């Protein structure tokens, strides 16, 4: 039962804190900081379903986020849909697309798969750049009219924030639920040894396709919400390759394959980035320091922070998930 897992309650407490902290004193700057952390957590924990749980490195994970943003913004702006409905529709549509892509590229293993995901990202980006209804390379803007039905921009942004926090909570709960399910067990078996898993009875083809599709859903919803908040989207912001890679860095930092690791890594990375960007001396070297950190993690602590804790305290495996 998921209710008996300490991690489940931890997720709820974390989400509650995200809701409560900026609310106190209507602290908008804090809200804007936290929403970035929340998005980072959404991306890294869903990416974790592929990299950490299944062992398939997705370099193009951001494509789900960007497509979700486009579909969401298109539906709310050009079609006048309700935001929540539009976001869900974006999630469903992107998951379905992922299933189609997945059936093709999941036949590849290891590095070949990783490369194909880069190809998918770039191809989708190139397509959007040439796609007229979505404004080609200039992208789409949202008129402030759209906020009206929400009682003005202020209220709309707060509401949007809570929705993002909701998606964050769902992402983490989904990660946990999968981890403690039969489905998750099958995925871990694939990660450890795909051939052995198949011989043990796991339908690897179907499992991989499902998890690839599932890992697309919440990032797409989050994309729809975030680009609604920003009020604009263009193909370069939506499908930024380096953002995709940063998701992997976060995951490695925290510890791939663990629910807490994905959240922790995202939090640490965002904190580090804001720290570096605000420090006048270090802001030029933000990338250098992040890269150095990643190198250190890869070379000396490939299990990330949580992996390191596991090594120190083997018993922690059962408690921290």
């Amino acid at each position, binding site marked *: 039962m998921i209710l008996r897992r300490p991690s489940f309650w931890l997720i709820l407490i974390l989400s509650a804190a995200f809701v409560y902290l900026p609310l106190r004193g209507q602290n908008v700057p804090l809200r804007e900081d936290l929403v970035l952390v929340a998005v980072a957590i959404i991306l890294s924990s869903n990416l974790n379903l592929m990299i950490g749980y299944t062992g398939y490195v997705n370099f193009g994970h951001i494509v789900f986020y960007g497509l979700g943003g486009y579909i969401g913004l298109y539906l709310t702006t050009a079609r006048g849909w309700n935001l929540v409905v539009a976001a869900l529709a974006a999630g469903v549509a992107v998951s379905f697309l992922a299933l189609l892509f997945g059936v093709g590229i999941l036949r590849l293993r290891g590095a070949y798969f990783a490369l194909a995901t880069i190809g998918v990202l770039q191809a989708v980006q190139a397509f959007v750049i040439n796609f007229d209804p979505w404004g080609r390379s200039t992208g789409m803007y949202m008129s402030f009219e759209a906020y009206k039905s929400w009682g003005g921009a202020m209220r709309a942004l707060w509401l949007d924030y809570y929705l993002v926090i909701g998606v964050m909570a769902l992402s983490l709960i989904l990660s946990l639920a999968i981890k403690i399910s039969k489905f998750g067990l099958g995925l871990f078996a694939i990660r450890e*040894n795909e051939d*052995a898993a198949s011989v043990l009875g796991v339908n690897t083809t179907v499992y991989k396709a499902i998890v690839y599709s599932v890992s697309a859903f919440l990032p797409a919803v989050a994309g729809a919400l975030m680009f609604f908040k920003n009020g604009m989207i263009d193909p370069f912001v939506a499908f930024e390759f380096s953002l995709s890679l940063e998701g992997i860095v976060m995951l490695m930092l925290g510890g791939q394959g663990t629910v807490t690791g994905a959240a922790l890594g995202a939090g640490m990375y965002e904190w580090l980035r804001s720290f570096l960007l605000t420090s006048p001396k270090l802001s030029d070297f933000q990338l250098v320091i992040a890269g150095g950190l990643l190198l250190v993690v890869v070379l000396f602590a490939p299990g990330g922070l949580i992996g390191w804790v596991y090594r120190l305290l083997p018993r922690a495996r059962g408690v921290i998930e």
Partner: protein
Amino acid sequence: MMPLLEVKDVSKRFGGLLAVSNVSFTLNQGEILGLIGPNGAGKTTLFNVVNGVFKSDGGSINFDGHDIAGKSPHRVVQMGLARTHQIVQPLNEMTVRDNVTVGACFGREYLGLNAARRVAGDVLEQVGMGARANQLARSLTIAGKKRLEVARALAAKPKLLLLDEVLAGLNPTEIAKMIELVRSIRDSGVSVFMIEHLMQAVMNLSDRIVVLNFGQKLAEGRPEEVARNPQVIEAYLGDPNIAEKLTEKN
């Protein structure tokens, strides 16, 4: 006796190499069938064809009344044909219990997670690994990993178990224990098809033996018959006369 597994004219080709060539045999319900032959004779390839890892090039494979030729491995195990690997394939970063739970979850009974955990616990007791259930699989010794292979396959509740060199690399005490385990598995109603190099063990355990050499069936029969077969002796020990001829030429 009823045949549980019927293999007819099965071949497997890799590029230009015919690894298994027109092999036919049957395995009866409740028996232990041994498969022997020199290194590179195609024994493991034959296993891989039977359980669907490789697609056979021609021939038919009938298991428990179903044609399983060309079926993928996960389908085959769910029909009741489980196997172990010659080179152990533990799911390293998972616990021993989780390894076995995978077998129970996705095996013939396709159990839910909780039921599978219980089965895993029982099977681990059965193979004498109850105390190591919470260890990571990677931390097991080679003997432990071999045992884990067997446990995982057993957890799938198979009707037929394919054992690929479960004795290789074990010391005499471990070998004795493993032989005992294989017997108990058969006594519990599971048929066994085993590749084994350790002649003493395979001769003792098997009801019948199939000998493979260069991908072809060299002989088939009861252990005593096979052991007296001059062709088999040559394939395994080498022809003593060749040796003499070689030294004579001085």
